[in-house]
């Protein structure tokens, strides 16, 4: 499946956007998982929604806006795939704690924020976008499952698709059972045809095997293995190379399959429109 990559977003400790991520991925600066999280940019949310949105929704909305801005696309056009293993882990924990209390009262807002498609809801409300939006999960393979679903939508529906991959850690006590290292996410705006903003063509397919990813620095490797949403870091690393080249990145997917992503760099502006 061939799709065109028009916009990239990244968020994590010390990483506010794709530009900030490039230096880390090239090894020009060390990645520090303990670095402060930048402030979320959720200016697109209406004031009421901004107050109601938790960390997970703010992370997803920030990432969505990054990819949309980078791609220069009308935000009402793309369909959306939101991929996260457990979504808003804070809301989930609060609800389970409330239900274990004597009165079992949970707030209506907390309840509607608990659905896995909460981020999709906030984003589409903010952008008045009525295109299909989905929310998917596949535990540690959530990111590759999300990429596969997004690419499949691009190719079979012939539509631009916004893919947002995001996770936040669980608070105690579930943090002991389901450790997620840090707040992290990435986003992509994928197009069915090359545009003036396209930075690469991605050829995505299932392959047999379980190839190990190219080694990354210990800090980035800890991020990749510590947050499901960081599973595609090798793809970002390849895209961040100073001299773009044709190459294939293989990322884990449901055994016995892996997901191969062939990258063909494109010069933005190469297509006359």
């Amino acid at each position, binding site marked *: 499946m061939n799709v065109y990559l028009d916009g990239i977003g990244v968020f994590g400790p010390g990483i506010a956007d794709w530009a900030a991520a490039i230096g880390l991925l090239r090894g020009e600066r060390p990645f520090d998982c303990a670095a402060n999280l930048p402030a979320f940019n959720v200016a697109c949310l209406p004031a009421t929604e901004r107050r*109601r949105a938790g960390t997970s929704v703010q992370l997803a909305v920030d990432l969505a806006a990054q990819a949309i801005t980078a791609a220069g*696309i*009308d935000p009402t*056009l793309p369909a959306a795939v939101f991929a996260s*293993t*457990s979504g808003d882990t804070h809301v989930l924990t609060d*609800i*389970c704690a409330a*239900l*274990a209390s004597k009165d*079992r009262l*949970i*707030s*209506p807002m907390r*309840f*509607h924020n*608990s*659905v*896995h*498609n*909460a981020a*999709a*809801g906030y984003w*589409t*409300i903010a*952008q*008045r*976008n*009525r*295109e*299909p*939006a*989905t*929310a998917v*999960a*596949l*535990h540690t393979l959530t990111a590759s*499952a999300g990429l*596969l*679903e997004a690419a*499949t*939508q691009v190719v*079979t*529906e*012939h*539509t*631009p698709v916004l893919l947002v991959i995001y996770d936040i850690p669980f608070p105690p*006590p*579930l943090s*002991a*059972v*389901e450790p997620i290292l840090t707040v992290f996410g990435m986003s992509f705006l994928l197009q069915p*045809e090359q*545009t003036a903003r396209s930075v690469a063509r991605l050829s995505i397919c*299932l392959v047999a095997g379980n190839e190990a990813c190219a080694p990354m620095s210990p800090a980035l490797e800890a991020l990749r293995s510590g947050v499901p949403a960081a599973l595609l870091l090798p793809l970002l690393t390849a895209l961040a190379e100073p001299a773009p080249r044709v190459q294939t990145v293989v990322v884990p*997917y*449901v*055994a*016995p*399959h892996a997901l191969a992503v062939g990258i063909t760099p494109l010069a933005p502006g190469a297509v006359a429109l």
Partner: protein
Amino acid sequence: MPHAKPPQAAMVPLAITEFTLSNALGFGKAATRDALRQQRSGLIPCNFLDVALNTYIGRVADLEQRPVTPRLAAFDCRNNRLAQAALQQDAFEAAVDTAKLRYGAHRVAVIIGTSTSGILSTELAFRARDPETGALPTPVHYRETHELSSSAEFVRQYLQLSGPVLAISTACSSSAKVFASAWRMLQADLCDAVVAGGVDSLCLTTLYGFSSLELVAAEPCRPADQNRGGISIGEAAGFALLERIQNAPDASLGLLGYGESVDAYHMSTPQPEGLGAALAMQRALDRAGLAAGDIDYINLHGTASRSNDSAEDHAVSRLFGRQTPCSSTKGWTGHTLGAAGITEALIGLLCIEHSLIPGSLNTRQIDPTFMSRITLEPISQPVRRVLSNSFGFGGNNASLIVGRINI
């Protein structure tokens, strides 16, 4: 400038070569079919755990006595018990085995919709936290019971499949959207068959959550009734085996179309004129290459909440006028949330197989402001095509058209 979408050609239907469903009406197709014919509701006064809410529920009997198979013991929870019990009905496993032999296990995908997965296990574990440290009792099998793909992974391992896997969780449209993703996966040649499913089971989160929104009825739900008082929460599982039509020349039933949209309006209230709902229905018709008059019956989302039923009526009447008979079957099963999409699409197939249009059970007086053709009494007549609606929180909408194929 963005590329304009090419005009959409009608999709080639997907064959549904086997299906099964289990819910408060019982296990397997016959139980649901018989209850529809006999107008027997599965709703009972809430007797779930120690829940003290004045409401009715659609509870599946005997799940407490049906643990998951020992080889998958870590997956044991109410949600996966319900999934397993449903998979064991109607020779569904045999149909999957046939597909596995034909295509290879690695070419059969599993796509499961769920809203709350097995959250009940975590809810109960929180009750048993260590009073000193707050730690959960061990072991907690979060990935196997509660993570949103736990049932997808359970179904995959139970059926011993190794194709692509996906869990979709978009609240009450979850298991309608599995059909759209299934069509796309087959279209992209990522697999040759899809086990599409939906599973959602009773839990405290939804019972107390919908109560907090004052959306839960004190009596059995009365969809489209002028005095409707809210929803009755149910639990269900449903599965369909989808294959390309050219590989299933004998199949008589299929997925003819699907349409997805969002309201972009409010997190928990539908857009009042049903604009997003109408968009999903129109997209389903367009994709199926059908006109409104080609639909014989509409299975409404019809939750019996005041705002859903009103918005849906606006949307349905705008597209279908007063022509097409419609009803909600939630008076039988309750609102099975993430399992509602597939449950009601499969009820649509039962209606086609048995030439039955169900009336809206429990509905006494249709809301006088409604403009669509809500049926209160069952109608016996041939049914070729059924449109089924599913709308969820976040304004997430999906409409499916199922019907006869190879005719």
